[in-house]
C-alpha cells in the first residue's frame, strides 16, 4: 500500500535522499498531477525546524521560470513537508557522467541562463544567496532549459545578518570565504558558477581528491582565451577580485561567445608559416637528389640549405607554436572506486578533519567541550615533546622518560591533590609522592 501524505499526496518513489530529509515524487490525488515533496525528517529541535522553515520562507517569495514553484506546505507529526512543482529531467551531474562534458556553446548558454536566475535571486530585497550551486542542483529539462532546485542552503539577507553563521556548501564548489568565515555573499555564488562552468567544459569535478583546478585551455585549446579568463576571474580566492554582480559576469560571458575573426586569422597565419618552413626544408632536400647530385657536393654544400630550413622550422615552432597545440590533455579521472572498512579514513580525509579541528579550536569550542566532560584532561608527551594518545590498553615503549602535561585551563577550582600510581605486569603497585596543585588566578 502506498503512503499518503496529508490525505492528498500519494508517494510514488524516492527522488533523492540527503542529510536533511528525503524528496519524494508524489501524485496530487485532487488535481491528478505529479509533484515533489521534500520531507524534512526528525526536525526535533527548534533550530532545525527554523532552518527548514527558512527554506519555505525563501521559496514562497520567489517567482521565476527557472525556479521551482511552491505548491503547499504542511507538518505531519515531527516531519515538515514542502510540496513543490515536479521538474522532469536529469541533473547536470548525471548529464556530465553520461557524456563527459558539455559542448562549448551549450556550456556558455547554460552559464548565461544561470547568471539570469542567480541575478534574479540577488536582486531580491533582501538579497537571496543560493550558496550551494553545483551540478547536482541544476536540472536539465527535455527542451534544454535548466532550472535550479534545492534551496536548503539559500538564505536571505546576507549583508549585515549576524545570525547566519552555518557552514553550508559543497567542497570544491563553495567559495573559500564560505569555509573560512561562514560569510557568503553574491561573490560566493559567482565563484560556484565559475567552478560549474569549469566542470562543464573539462568534465573534471572539483571534488576529485587529486585534481587541482587548472586553466581550461590546458585541457582543450579550442576554448576561447576570453572564456578561460572569465572562469579565472570567477574563481579567484579573494572575493573582491571577482565580478561584482551576475550582470557583469553575464556581459563577460556573452562577449566570449562572439567570434573573434582576428584571432582565428592570426592562428592560421602562424600555423601556416610553420608548415611552409617544413615544406621548404623537405623540398630543398628531395629536389636536388631528383636532379642528381655530384659526389663532391655531398653532404655539403648539398645539405646546407635543407638543414638551415629544418633549423628555422624547429626554432619557429619552439618560439611561436609551442603553446598552440590543439590538444594538451593533463590527467582526467574517469573512474574511482575505493572500498575499505579501515576506521581511520586516510591522510586526505585527515587533512580535512585537521582543518575542521583547527577551526573549532579557533572558536574556543574544543576547550569548552573538555570542560563540559567533567574529567581532568591529561596530555602525555614523549621525550621530544610530541603528544601521545592516551588509549586504554596501549603499550608505549620508551627509553628515557614520559612527560605528563595537565593544561592549566582544564584545572578545576581550588586545591588539587595529585599522585601517580603504576602497576606492572605482575600486579605490583608503585606510587609517587602526593603533590598539591592550585590554579593561580
Amino acid at each position, binding site marked *: 500500500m502506498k503512503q499518503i501524505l496529508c490525505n492528498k499526496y500519494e508517494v510514488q518513489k524516492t527522488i533523492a535522499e540527503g542529510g536533511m530529509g528525503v524528496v519524494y515524487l508524489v501524485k496530487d490525488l485532487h488535481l491528478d498531477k505529479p509533484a515533489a515533496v521534500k520531507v524534512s525528517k526528525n526536525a526535533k529541535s527548534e533550530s532545525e525546524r527554523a532552518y527548514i522553515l527558512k527554506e519555505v520562507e525563501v521559496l514562497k517569495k520567489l517567482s521565476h521560470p527557472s525556479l521551482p514553484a511552491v505548491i503547499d506546505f504542511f507538518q505531519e507529526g515531527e516531519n515538515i513537508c514542502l510540496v513543490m512543482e515536479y521538474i522532469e529531467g536529469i541533473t547536470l551531474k548525471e548529464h556530465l557522467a553520461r557524456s563527459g562534458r558539455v559542448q562549448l556553446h551549450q556550456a556558455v548558454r547554460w552559464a548565461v541562463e544561470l547568471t539570469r536566475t542567480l541575478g534574479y535571486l540577488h536582486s531580491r530585497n533582501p538579497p537571496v544567496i543560493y550558496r550551494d550551486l553545483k551540478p547536482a542542483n541544476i536540472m536539465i529539462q527535455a527542451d534544454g532549459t535548466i532550472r535550479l532546485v534545492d534551496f536548503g542552503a539559500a538564505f536571505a539577507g546576507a549583508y549585515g545578518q549576524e545570525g547566519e553563521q552555518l557552514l553550508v556548501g559543497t567542497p570544491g564548489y563553495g567559495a573559500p570565504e564560505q569555509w573560512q568565515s561562514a560569510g557568503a555573499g553574491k561573490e560566493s555564488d559567482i565563484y560556484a558558477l565559475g567552478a560549474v562552468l569549469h566542470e562543464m567544459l573539462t568534465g573534471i569535478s572539483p571534488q576529485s581528491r587529486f585534481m587541482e583546478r587548472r586553466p581550461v585551455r590546458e585541457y582543450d585549446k579550442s576554448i576561447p582565451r576570453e572564456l578561460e579568463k572569465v572562469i579565472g576571474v570567477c574563481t579567484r580566492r579573494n572575493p573582491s577580485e571577482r565580478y561584482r554582480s551576475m550582470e557583469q559576469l553575464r556581459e563577460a560571458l556573452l562577449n566570449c561567445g562572439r567570434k573573434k575573426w582576428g584571432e582565428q586569422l592570426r592562428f592560421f597565419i602562424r600555423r601556416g608559416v610553420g608548415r611552409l618552413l617544413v615544406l621548404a626544408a623537405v623540398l630543398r632536400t628531395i629536389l636536388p637528389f631528383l636532379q642528381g647530385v655530384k659526389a663532391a657536393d655531398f653532404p655539403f654544400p648539398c645539405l646546407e640549405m635543407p638543414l638551415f630550413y629544418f633549423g628555422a622550422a624547429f626554432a619557429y615552432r619552439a618560439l611561436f607554436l609551442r603553446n598552440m597545440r590543439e590538444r594538451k590533455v593533463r*590527467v582526467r579521472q574517469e573512474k574511482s572506486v575505493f572500498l575499505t572498512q*579501515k576506521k581511520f579514513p586516510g591522510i586526505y580525509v585527515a587533512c580535512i578533519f585537521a582543518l575542521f579541528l583547527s577551526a573549532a579550536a579557533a572558536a574556543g569550542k574544543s576547550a569548552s567541550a573538555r570542560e563540559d566532560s567533567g574529567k581532568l584532561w591529561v596530555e602525555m608527551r614523549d621525550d621530544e615533546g610530541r603528544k601521545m594518545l592516551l588509549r586504554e590498553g596501549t603499550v608505549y615503549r620508551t627509553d628515557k622518560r614520559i612527560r605528563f602535561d595537565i593544561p592549566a585551563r582544564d584545572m578545576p577550582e581550588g586545591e588539587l591533590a595529585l599522585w601517580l600510581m603504576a602497576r606492572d605486569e605482575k600486579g605490583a603497585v608503585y606510587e609517587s609522592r602526593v603533590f598539591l596543585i592550585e590554579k593561580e588566578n
Partner: protein
Amino acid sequence: MRLVSGVYWDKGRREENQDSLVLEQVYTRGGRVLLAAVSDGIGGLPEGETASGFIVEMLLETFYHQALSLIERGKGKRALERCLLRCFFETNQLLNQYAQGKGIRLGATVSVLLIWRRNYLVAHLGDSRIYRLSRHQRIRQLTQDHSDGGNGLLKCLGSFPYQRPDLSAGRIRGKAGFLLCSDGFFRCLDKSTIAEILRVEETEGEEQIGKRLKELAGLGIRQGETDNSTALYVRCGTQSGRRRFG
C-alpha cells in the same frame, strides 16, 4: 584502449570486512591508465582492515604522485617496477612503526595490477590472486600463492621484515580480462567456472560485470564460503568506445 571494470565487495558471514580494494582509471596524455588492487587483511591478527586499507591508500598515493608522471614521461616497466617496490617498502616500514606503537602485529596480502598503453604490470604478495582471461574461455593464474596450502601465509605485507613482492609484466593483445580476487572469492570456485561466467566476449558493460561477479560470489557462498569476498574485474577492449577527449 577501452577499459570496462566492475567490483564486488562483501563481508560474507564475518562481522567485519577486512578486505580493501581500489580501482582508479584516468586518461592522460599517454593514454588510459588503470590501477587495480585487492588487499586482504590477515584474519588471525588484529586490525586486518586497517592494514589492508592502509596498503591500498599508499598504492593510490603512489599512483597519482609517481606512477602517472612516469607514464606521462614515457618511462617503461622498469621504472614502474621500481616505483611499486619503493611503495611496498615504505608501506612495510610504516606498518611496522604503527604496529610497534600499538604493540600488535598486523598484515595483509596485496595484489596490484597496473595497465597502461596495452602493457600490464603485476605485483603480488600473499594468497590473493590475479587471473588473466582471454578469448575462447582461456584462463591463466598470473600470481603464485604465498601460502603453505592451508591457512598459513608465507609472505605478506605488514609488521614483518620486508619481503620482496613477485613482479611480472606482459602485453595485452586483443581482448583480455583481468580478475583480482581475495581467497574468500576463489576458494570454492574452479578456474573453468570463472572462465565460463566471465567470458571476455560477453562482458561488455560495467553492470554486466557487476552481476557476473555477484553470481560467482553466490556460487561460493552456496558451497559454504564464509570469508570476506572481494573481486575486481577489468576488461580490456580493442578499440575505444568513445570519442577521444579533447
